[in-house]
């Protein structure tokens, strides 16, 4: 019987020939991502239990991101604990403030993500890295503590769902629209505990940045992990981003006779720009059904859509215009921030009346840098629109692509981005 890419990677990491869905395996961890919210408690747990060990200081990547730079005294204390630990343990890849960025944009950019690896992180959107034909999943602080100390975790090999993205995307329709459409179709628990394996022609035209937007939101359908097969686009990205010291990797592919619990087909050519309305990411509607709804804020950033490609798309629409509502632009990493300066994007946003912030998870999770008041509505390129996600429990979040968020910023209401695209 054939195996899926997820089963093959778990088998490799568990030192076994085969793994089938449902089997429990103890897998070696190749990369652990640590940030400022879930890692300090993990460190405290280890201390309380008298465990001083770090399994491998070269396989842990640390970056404060959620509340960085510290938004208040309490988050400063979290940063202080993270910093002291990373220094004490001699963590090799520690991105201090100034080089720190939104973790799921930073790790691939800095060459920490390779195909075939098992990657965990104390963050639910760790599933992002599956875009690189890797197995990656989010964990809580206790698992994080165990992984840091032992370099191993047990997993139940997930059953796989195949998501076939047929056709090619029309102008003004992006990978964000695709994943909102997928989650809307299968529901926010449609992939509960499962691996979502994305295939199909629509992926061929997508950059790695665009693909990461898709795997980033696998968790919003309840998925354990998401994967996209390795191809020339993956290779080209890795050729640029991997350092010489870790440029080797193993590519796994699903067998033709691999077992899938279900197959979901999406006609991407027929998609319109999508908006996920409050209060679930699966509450998607085509823009034609919701255009005109007045907004108070537009937020362009996050691990879902805070990469340079997203900024270019937003800038193309905003260039030479004035935004009608508060518009907050948050590049996900310092490199993206610098690129925005070099390419003149920051100036475009400044001239249009936007706020351009330093890299941070910021308001995506209601931290800071664009919190909503009661009764306010925000069109946002982020990944969650739960009650109170970006501020007041009485505020509303509408998830959309950077193009839709930019067009909506210009008009002050949900707007079809296609009218601004040449």
């Amino acid at each position, binding site marked *: 019987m054939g195996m899926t890419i997820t089963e093959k990677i778990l088998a490799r990491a568990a030192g076994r020939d085969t793994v089938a869905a449902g089997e429990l395996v103890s897998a070696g961890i190749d990369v652990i991502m640590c940030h400022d919210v879930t890692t300090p408690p993990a460190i405290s747990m280890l201390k309380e239990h008298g465990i001083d060990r770090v399994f491998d200081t070269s396989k842990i990547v640390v970056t404060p991101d959620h509340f960085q730079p510290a938004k208040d005294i309490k988050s400063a204390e979290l940063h202080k604990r993270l910093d002291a630990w990373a220094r004490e343990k001699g963590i090799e890849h520690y991105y201090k403030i100034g080089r720190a960025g939104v973790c799921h944009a930073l790790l691939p950019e800095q060459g920490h993500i390779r195909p075939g690896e098992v990657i965990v992180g104390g963050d639910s959107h760790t599933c992002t890295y599956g875009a690189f034909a890797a197995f990656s999943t989010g964990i*809580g602080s206790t698992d994080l503590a165990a992984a840091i100390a032992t370099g191993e975790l047990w997993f139940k090999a997930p059953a796989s769902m195949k998501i076939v993205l047929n056709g090619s995307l029309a102008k003004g329709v992006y990978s964000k629209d695709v994943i909102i459409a997928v989650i809307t179709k299968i529901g926010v628990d449609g992939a509960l505990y499962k691996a979502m394996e994305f295939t199909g022609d629509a992926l061929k035209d997508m950059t790695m940045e665009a693909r990461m937007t898709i795997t980033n939101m696998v968790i919003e359908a309840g998925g354990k992990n998401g994967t996209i097969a390795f191809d020339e686009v993956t290779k080209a990205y890795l050729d640029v981003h991997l350092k010489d010291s870790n440029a080797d990797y193993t590519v796994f592919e699903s067998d033709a006779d691999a077992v899938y619990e279900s197959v979901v087909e999406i006609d991407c050519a027929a998609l319109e720009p999508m908006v996920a309305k409050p209060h679930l990411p699966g509450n998607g509607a085509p823009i034609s059904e919701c255009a005109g709804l007045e907004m108070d804020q537009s937020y362009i950033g996050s691990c879902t859509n805070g990469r340079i490609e997203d900024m270019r798309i937003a800038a193309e629409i905003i260039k030479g215009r004035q935004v009608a509502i508060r518009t907050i632009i948050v590049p996900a990493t310092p490199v993206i921030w610098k690129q925005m300066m070099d390419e003149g994007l920051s100036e475009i946003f400044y001239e249009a009346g936007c706020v351009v912030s330093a890299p941070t998870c910021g308001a995506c999770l209601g931290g800071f840098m664009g919190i909503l008041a009661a009764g306010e509505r925000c069109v946002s390129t982020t990944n969650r629109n739960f009650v109170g996600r970006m501020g007041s429990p009485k505020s509303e979040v509408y998830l959309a692509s950077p193009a839709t968020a930019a067009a909506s910023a210009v008009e002050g209401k949900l707007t079809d981005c296609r009218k601004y695209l040449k």
Partner: protein
Amino acid sequence: MAKAHVYKRDYINTDEIIPARYLNTDDVAELATHCMEDLDTGFVGKCSAGDVIVGGVDFGCGSSREHAVWALQGAKVGAVIAPTFARIFYRNCINCGFYVIELENAAEKINDGDEIEIDYGKGVINNKTQGKAIEFRPLPDFAIEIIKDGGLLEHIKKK
């Protein structure tokens, strides 16, 4: 005897259990004061030690924050009962030594305010108010052992 607090809502997420605006601390006592705040601001005031939350499908979806479990533990919640749980939350609960019970149509079988008693090993909820015994599939033995030991790290240490 535990009292049931029933929320007839699916997809009760970790942002509702503990909003991210409080994630700048991992102090359990402080987190507890905000437990369930964005779903029900009155929850902390009416929850007594050992009380149980009953919810709809995909309970605990969203963020991986273990703070959600700590907030529930800090507020002295005894267990959560729901038809299905989000994967990371479910794992976090066991890792923290907190009981989760999968029960189909849980919010139909238990009413808000019902007095219940739970036998976790046997898989029986005794609904005293309704005079009914409700069976559920108990957690596997290894998970119950982890919970009894007070969580994964205590469990590993003991071993």
